[in-house]
């Protein structure tokens, strides 16, 4: 679809550009904030901006952002003659359109004053059937060959298409009730119908069927062999002159039940606490026993199921937590992952917690939750897809690229915002949310959106974003960009510093424990169940663990006595003392290989040899040496020393390795990377927009204003180079728009170093590296700090 020339009146892009140029900086900023694709890359001047803003794809994206009312106002403008006055527009829509019009103007979809309203150039092409109306009759019959047109008009005894439009009433009546019924089906859109042999010639006399009677009267136009179109004038006549049938001027209420706010907040808070804890549980486990990375880059269904069983959660909740941990940077692929491994596994790569996880773990619950919830809100990953099949019937694995849907973050936010707009405590029905979203973004509907909405509501409940399906206060604050941590802290249970110890060797912490005590208890006892409280069980193994970590028996008993609200039961102190008594009776060390000889003197000799130091030998007994180097190395080493050792069968060798918790080794290539500047996302930040406006104004100035003293007008490119040179001399930072070799547009903040041979060498602050930029690919320059 190319830019559609405006056929109705002589509005040229020139005047639209003038209107744009007349916008003040704030208005341009608002425009770019809403339509960030207009400044990626930054157009060289306002003329370029105006043509970009009227490109079909740009218009389509802008229209996608309109709600039902604004879209209707826009469509009404397309139907009304151009230019139109505000009064005519309001009358056609039948509602107060002031707000919607303001929004359309700020998006530069509508321009001009109230007495001369016009749509942006190219807009007609973007909406094929505005308000469900067909093209004007003149256009609808444009495809008729002239002889056929003449025949039609002659048959009707009329002079022109315009004459048909003036006689619609009598013609419809003449066609008969069956034909009227056929017309009524097309009246409210879509204004096209499918008919066999639509192009066959018909006359008033030869017309048999209702459709033929309509074609013969010029009330329908045959667009091609199988399609008939209802001309706009006929459509408006059938509608009694109204443009819209039942326009919803406000979003439909969500419906559902209203719950007590306190209950909602505390339930969501409890769930938030559980979420953080479960993610920790999950990643702790994966740190020790990491699942493999599939060739597709995802997580195997079996691993997902095993984890679900371990966590005692449904699979979808498990997939959700895994995905969120990944999006929050707490989990990453590690090892050789190139997507080309043999079999179903992608090489040796595994899923491991990242170093960022270790930092995350140190924070308070509320901060950890905000990290996780924020990642969920922003991620383009859709956990709900895990376990489903794609269009080629292949399983979609969690953590794989197949589980990405670009519109996910936008739908997620829109869903939560719909909840936020409703009265506090509203627990809506899913259908209510569908309807609400359909009003807010009528052009973005579809099955995927409905599924995303369903998943969002379900996931929000599981993560503690909602409680009893109503939006929690801390989420409200999070969406508004406020201090969500404080809001969450207010509903989380207060940490306790005591436990109740019982004779069955369990200790119950009746709430979340203060960190120190939690750590000590986790060392000395096994966690048996979690939730609002934590149940610990002391076993010989757990007590041994504490002793291994350097705690003494009396120290342990003292700690427990101090923090127990109840008397320490005797069996527990016996247990601790029993284990302590036996602790350390056997000693175990690490050795990779050993040297054995019946002759202690030979071993004496080896120990005395200085060259043997690198063999890291240690005498265990008169006839045994232990070494920490591998057996083969030890054999070679001894041979070098002039001995003739023989290897013993593997049954005798002692190889002890500690099972250690691992971490993902690569920061970057295995970690979650959020999608590039999503147009559906929150958009570019303010400083980038401001810089873009400045660059645009500068380019526009350069393009239009001739330089003084008669020197040749500087091209925008020359102006840009000049700006870059100045920045190089000054050593300052500038903002540039850049098209890379693939034509991918990006915005970067750089510190120019030098310009030579058509290239700019600069430190790229956005990517933290020095880069060479081709000057001809730089689309705009603006100062980052200081006046532009």
């Amino acid at each position, binding site marked *: 679809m190319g830019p559609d020339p405006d056929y109705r009146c002589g509005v040229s892009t020139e005047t639209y550009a003038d209107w744009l140029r007349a916008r003040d900086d704030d208005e341009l900023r608002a425009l770019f904030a809403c339509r960030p694709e207009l400044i990626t890359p930054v157009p060289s001047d306002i003329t370029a901006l105006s043509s970009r803003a009227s490109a079909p794809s740009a218009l389509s994206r802008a229209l996608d952002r309109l709600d039902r009312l604004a879209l209707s106002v826009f469509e009404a403008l397309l139907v009304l003659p151009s230019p139109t006055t505000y009064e005519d527009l309001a009358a056609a829509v039948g509602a107060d359109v002031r707000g919607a019009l303001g929004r359309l103007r700020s998006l530069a979809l509508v321009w001009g004053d109230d007495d001369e309203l016009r749509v942006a150039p190219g807009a007609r092409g973007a909406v094929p059937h505005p308000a469900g109306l067909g093209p004007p009759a003149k256009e609808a019959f444009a495809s008729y060959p002239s002889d056929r047109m003449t025949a039609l008009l002659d048959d009707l005894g009329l002079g022109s298409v315009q004459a048909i439009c003036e006689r619609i009433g009598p013609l419809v009546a003449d066609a008969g009730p069956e034909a009227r019924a056929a017309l009524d089906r097309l009246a409210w859109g879509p204004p096209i119908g499918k008919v066999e042999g639509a192009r066959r010639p018909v006359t008033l006399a030869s017309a048999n069927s209702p459709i033929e009677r309509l074609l013969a009267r010029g009330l329908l136009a045959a667009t091609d062999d199988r399609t008939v179109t209802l001309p706009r004038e006929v459509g408006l006549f059938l509608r009694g002159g109204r443009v819209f049938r039942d326009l919803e001027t406000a979003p439909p209420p969500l419906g559902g039940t209203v719950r007590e706010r306190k209950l909602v907040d505390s339930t969501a808070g*409890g769930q938030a606490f559980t979420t953080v804890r479960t993610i920790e549980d999950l990643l702790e486990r994966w740190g020790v026993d990491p699942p493999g990375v599939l060739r597709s880059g995802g997580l195997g269904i079996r691993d997902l199921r095993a984890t679900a069983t371990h966590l005692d959660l449904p699979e979808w909740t498990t997939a959700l937590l895994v995905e969120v941990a990944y999006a929050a940077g707490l989990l990453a692929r590690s090892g050789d992952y190139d997507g080309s491994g043999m079999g179903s596994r992608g090489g040796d790569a595994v899923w491991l917690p990242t170093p960022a996880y270790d930092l995350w773990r140190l924070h308070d619950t509320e901060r950890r939750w905000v990290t996780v919830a924020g990642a969920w809100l922003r991620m383009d990953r859709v956990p709900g897809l895990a376990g489903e099949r794609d269009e080629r019937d292949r399983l979609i694995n969690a953590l794989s690229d197949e589980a990405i849907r670009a519109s996910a973050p936008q739908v997620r936010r829109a869903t939560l915002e719909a909840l936020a707009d409703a009265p506090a405590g509203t627990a809506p029905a899913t259908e209510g949310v569908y309807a609400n979203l359909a009003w807010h973004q009528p052009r973005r509907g579809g099955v995927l959106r409905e599924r995303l909405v369903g998943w969002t509501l379900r996931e929000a409940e599981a993560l503690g974003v909602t409680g009893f399906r109503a939006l929690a206060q801390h989420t409200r604050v999070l969406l508004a960009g406020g201090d969500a941590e404080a809001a969450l802290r207010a509903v989380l*249970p207060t940490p306790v510093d005591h436990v109740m110890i*019982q004779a*069955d060797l369990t200790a119950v912490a*009746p709430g979340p424990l203060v960190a120190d005590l939690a750590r000590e208890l986790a060392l000395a006892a096994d966690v048996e*169940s979690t939730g*609002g409280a934590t*149940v610990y069980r002391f076993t010989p193994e757990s007590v041994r663990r504490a002793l291994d970590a350097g705690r003494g028996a009396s120290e342990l008993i003292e700690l427990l006595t101090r923090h127990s609200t109840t008397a320490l*039961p005797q069996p527990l102190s016996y247990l601790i003392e029993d284990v302590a008594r036996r602790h350390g009776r056997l000693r175990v060390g690490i050795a990779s290989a050993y040297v054995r000889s019946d002759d202690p003197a030979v071993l004496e000799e080896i120990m005395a040899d200085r060259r043997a130091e690198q063999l890291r030998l240690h005498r265990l007994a008169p006839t045994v040496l232990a070494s920490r180097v591998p057996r083969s190395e030890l054999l070679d080493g001894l041979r070098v020393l002039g001995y003739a050792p023989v290897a013993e069968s593997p049954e005798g060798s002692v190889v002890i390795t500690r099972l250690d918790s691992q971490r993902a080794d690569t920061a970057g290539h295995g970690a979650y990377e959020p999608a590039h500047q999503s147009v559906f996302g929150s958009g570019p930040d303010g400083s980038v927009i401001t810089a873009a406006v400045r660059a645009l104004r500068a380019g526009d100035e350069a393009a239009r204003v001739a330089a003084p003293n008669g020197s040749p007008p500087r091209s925008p490119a020359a102006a840009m180079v000049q700006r870059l040179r100045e920045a190089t001399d000054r050593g300052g930072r500038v903002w540039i728009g850049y098209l890379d070799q693939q034509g991918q547009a990006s915005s970067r903040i750089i510190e120019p170093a030098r310009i030579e041979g058509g290239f700019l060498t600069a430190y790229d602050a956005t990517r933290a590296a020095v880069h060479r930029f081709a000057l001809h690919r730089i689309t705009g320059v603006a100062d980052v700090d200081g006046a532009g």
Partner: protein
Amino acid sequence: MTDGPLIVQSDKTLLLEVDHDAAAECRKAIAPFAELERAPEHVHTYRITPLALWNARAAGHDAEQVIDALISFARYPVPHALLVDIADTMGRYGRLRLEKHPTYGLVLSSSDRAVLEEVLRAKKLQAMFGPRVDDDSVAVHPSERGTLKQALLKLGWPAEDLAGYVDGEAHPISLVEDGWGLRGYQREAADSFWHGGSGVVVLPCGAGKTIVGAAAMAHASATTLILVTNTVSAHQWKQELLRRTSLTEEEIGEYTGTKKQIRPVTIATYQVMTTRRKGVYTHLELFDARDWGLVLYDEVHLLPAPIFRMTADLQTRRRLGLTATLVREDGREGDVFSLIGPKRYDAPWKEMEAQGWIAPADCVEVRVTLTESERLAYATAEQEDRYRFCATTPTKSSVVQALVDRHRGEQTLVIGQYIDQLDELGERLDAPVIKGETKIKERERLFDAFRSGEISVLIVSKVANFSIDLPEAAVAVQVSGTFGSRQEEAQRLGRVLRPKSSGKGARFYSVVARDTLDQDYAAHRQRFLAEQGYAYRIVDADAVLADEEI
């Protein structure tokens, strides 16, 4: 946030703080739908299982009540997912009903067609169904009533059995309350069983389960088949019934290894019922020998698998199960639910004790240290002999002697696993030993003598684990056990829990060899009792030998 006594855990356990002011009220509210798992001194643990929820549904509670109880007593917010799960699970019970039908006899009907369709498509069930009656019901072969219920439970759609029971052959039975009276909870237990039709009554040892059985029989006033664990137990049932009811010697039959009497009330042992000859159960005809109006199962948690299978065919008769615990070590709780029936009554041990119906008990573990040479011998013993070695260490004998001396004048039981050890103790203490080879007659003579106080020390092997009524045993000394069986420990403690005429508390000693398998097993066994609130004290054998206050 409320300050409730209950904390809901993510693994569906409920923690009840017992010292909380609202604890009693909370217990009452959650007991119908949560199984008491552990009841140590401060925090009791209940678990919400599908079976527990279905038990609650069967008792007429709905999800609303359950959720309300949780929310109003919980200290912290209850996870929404848990509440949804509860509502879902409870909603599954009763979606299918087994009902009587005038032409088809027995039908399975449903208010939810999708569920019925799902069930009809299940492969394993195909053979159990007859023709489709209408959209909402299907005929069921009457012989499959029990197996169908079992299978449906496994599918997660437990059926409500509304098909009723046959009255059976009427036979007048009434309680004779002379010098004793039915206790409140016993009456309640018998009544709720009767209203429920079939099911299980859970009462701790010593709480008079036999009497509940007798009361149920009086309700039915019909011929009754009683299944018990062993012959001694059978005799005791008979004695109790003669004492407590209008039944006479001639009306009660014994169906055991030696006697095969079939009378209006017949007491049979599990053992004889499960005897097979050439792969055939030879005594099955007993079930059809009379038109039984009530079948009574003693110690349901020990019910052997063949009896389950036979019970599946007895679904038209009223069934009462009696037990101290629903926990089965083989995990067949679901079969108890579907074949015998839902739980109809339940009271926790500690509460019974607080009411004075069972004697308070003081549990003491006496730690014996092995001598150096014993330790060496233990360390080098074969794996399979090790437990026997440490459990029967000679050092224990002197400690047992000291304990018995300490309680001279009180009725004392010495319980053990190994016959050699018991024989040796018998000589040392000059006390009779009851073991597997002891004749039934002799056993009963000894029990009678012990009961009457003629002898005050009795040594018994594991034959005495179950169902022996020794009212005046005030002290029990356990010298060895069946490895780590928790069940056994509970049964043995039960020996001393019956209320004493003196009103004195009971003592339960467990003599254990330090730093050996014996100690590990003891710890495992004791866990069950500690979870029931019977905390063990540990004392050193030296303190016992030195006659110190313990």
